[in-house]
């Protein structure tokens, strides 16, 4: 006879058993603090990182200059001030844009989008056109996708702002700035040989993956694992804060 490893005979663990198993795991405080610090550094939250280094006693681990610079660059991008962002990048990592033509193009295109946004308000498409001709058109032949992106972006000029198709409207969404800022942040981290994905991001993916994997498993035991709650609730939930 041979027994199976994955599905031992006997009673399945109850919800309470699983809860106990979870409670029995004791993540160390230093593990937890490492995860948080790593996130604050990689995400580029300078004041939080500084305070956390003080409060958790992790001073030695942080390079504040990098966090502040990256934060400054990302903030400029978030504001739509791409010109300043590019200047900052060149100041901080002079070779970065040259070595990452795709990133450079993404920034220039975002700058074009911002110019188009302004031209819609001012009813003057001249600056946007000049910028596209001077900076983007010469780079477009480098990669086929550049050309496509440029054409796509220029199409913004052809439609009134309230009649844009969803893919075009997406270009004007603030999310576009966020995406480019994230790209810049990651590229800078990688150029500084820092692993660019925050540990907590991997951890959250891992948590989602294990749950999905257990649910799909052939093993009854694994499938019987109940959904485990993280204990996060919306502060505006069942018992709302008294309104002002």
């Amino acid at each position, binding site marked *: 006879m041979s027994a199976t490893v994955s599905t031992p005979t006997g*009673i399945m663990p109850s919800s309470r058993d699983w*809860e106990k198993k979870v409670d029995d795991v004791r993540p160390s405080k230093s593990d937890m603090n490492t995860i948080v610090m790593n996130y604050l550094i990689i995400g580029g939250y300078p004041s939080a990182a500084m305070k956390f280094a003080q409060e958790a006693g992790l001073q030695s681990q942080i390079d504040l200059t990098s966090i502040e610079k990256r934060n400054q660059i990302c903030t400029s991008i978030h504001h739509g001030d791409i010109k300043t962002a590019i200047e900052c990048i060149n100041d901080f990592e002079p070779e970065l844009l040259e070595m990452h033509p795709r990133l450079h193009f993404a920034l220039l295109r975002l700058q074009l989008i911002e110019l188009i946004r302004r031209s819609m308000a001012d009813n003057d498409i001249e600056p946007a056109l000049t910028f596209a001709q001077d900076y983007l058109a010469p780079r477009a032949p480098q990669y086929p996708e550049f050309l496509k992106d440029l054409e796509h972006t220029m199409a913004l000029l052809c439609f009134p702002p309230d009649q844009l198709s969803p893919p075009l409207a997406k270009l004007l969404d*603030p999310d576009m700035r966020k995406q480019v800022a994230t790209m810049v942040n990651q590229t800078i981290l990688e150029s500084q040989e820092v692993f660019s994905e925050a540990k907590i991001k991997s*951890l959250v993916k891992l948590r989602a993956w294990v749950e999905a*994997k257990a649910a799909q498993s052939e*093993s009854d035991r694994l499938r019987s694992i109940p959904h485990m709650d993280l204990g996060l609730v919306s502060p505006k939930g069942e018992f709302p804060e008294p309104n002002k």
Partner: protein
Amino acid sequence: MASGSSYHTVAASGTSTVVPRPQGSSWASIVSGQPSRPRIPSSTSTGLRTQRNGSYANLSEIGSQSGRYYNTALSNAFNTQSKLSRLPVSLPSYLEDSLYAEKLDAVRDSSWGSSIPSRTPSYTSVGLHAAQSRGTGLKLDVKDTVPSPDDDLPTPLPTKWNENDRSGGIEVSQDGLDVQFPATGPSKVNEYDSASVRADYFIPRSCGVYYYEVAIMNKSREGLISIGFCGADVQLNRLPGWEPNSWGYHGDDGKSFCCSGMGKAYGPQFNSKDVIGCGINFRTHTAFFTRNGQMLGTAFRDIPNDKKLFPAVGMKKPGEHIRVNFGQEEFSFDIDGYMKAERKSALQEISDSQVESLCPPLDEAALIQSLISSYLQHDGFVETAKAFAQDLQAEQNALSDNGKSKPVELMEDENAIHRQNIRTAILDGDIDKALELTHKYYPDVLTKNEQINFRIRCRKFIEMMRQSAEASNGRKKDPVSKRRAFDAYEDEDVDMDGGDNRSDMDLDEPTPVTGPAVPDLDMLGRVLDYGRQLQEDFKDKPDLQEEMEQVFSLFAYSDPMTSPMAHLLSEDGRGPVAEALNSAILVSLGKSSKAPLERLVQQTTVLLRELGEEGGPASFVNLHHWIHNLEFLPSS
């Protein structure tokens, strides 16, 4: 045929006691006859971090060898018979980032100290069962010892050939590493019989990949040696590969045998001094072999994942002799490199997973921000929490045009919110709401804490008194005194934003009065009823009587607010009650009062361990290592 070393002479003479190799001579030198190479202890390609001497390390060794893993209290608690002592002291380097390694570390962690002793008596080893059938070449009725569902202890790794789980025709050396077919066999049972031996422990799937090597010390003319793995119940008078539930690579014809007498052309034949490696991949359910450090490719597919598999070797002709390396020596194949590539594929699958379903409606970014912010608040990093909230708000403001920014919306720690709502209710004088919330979320707290139950009920009585007095006086309450009560408790760890909300609200309007204005007598009547009930409920508690009488004395005054007992009615009394209840709730939560981020780590650990038992991609994740190392998931 013998290489001329004294070791081989002894071995070839048919004695089962093999002289231990002199310390310092390397595996490679034994096999190749070359002078030994110096070991490179810190290199990633070395077989082991710590030298193991072939026998199980006892706990005194464990205690002295690595302070990082073991605590003395734990080692004192056990003798060498315990299951813990069977666990490897050190791991081959290729397993260091495996789930198996993480589990091993976890048992050594001091927090396990209390739970292990109660489990050990129930443990019975495979070795003990096998001992009952010692020396037979017949089918062993080995009872598998499946870890009970509650038993989270990892199983040991194979460390040597099991003297008690072999066929009669072959001999196992004293250190358990050499196996040979005596040139002048004592009793060759049957010419057609072969002789096999299994390792002492089955292979834990949480390794992800398991690998061992066998050096052909000496072979007969035919070279009928089989290297592979099989289940616990497979007959040992047959070569690995020939029986159901048995897989092997045969040296006489270079064929691979998969549970069948019919082999398939696979690799070269064995020569003396060859090093043959055998690897099982529990993620892809395949097995491969290597020869002298070279990969020979996939030999078997669809290896079932519900069978316990043991390393196994078999031989058929006199003079044949092999020696195994279960990881106590450097491997000749770059298993570390193989493992690294495997880990990458496994982790790719994980990094492609979507997180939106974890905590709807939060997307990945908002979920992470909620986890971080609730952790900071839960663990009292007050300044960091404020700074983080400001950083997030700044990001939000930058993104939204023309400065019309909406506030950052994050989810918060459930317990923190509940406790905060309860405290706010008490501070507002809304004792009914506080009671309702407490009963709803922490039903045990009030039944288990009579003192606190009593104080809250008293407070309720006092609040009723206040309302009654206020109604009859038509008096407005004094916002300043109320403000004071809040300030005193504002520095608590729970929430920063909430503090502001409270103050705003408090300055704007008086405490909400439950129900519309009612005639004085009616109200006083209800206060009386409540007081009687209170007395009824706590009349058996002598230590509470004095306090109760004090409170009831408020009835004696026509205007309690100006009475000598007026201090009892002060709003300042709400704070201590709120604090006492908050503490009681925290105590009742005990260790389960964990920040969501911590729960996430705990849950992931448990689920990974469960999942990794099957040997899938989960067995390639060592969470603890990952937190302290840079590399984890491949960047996209």
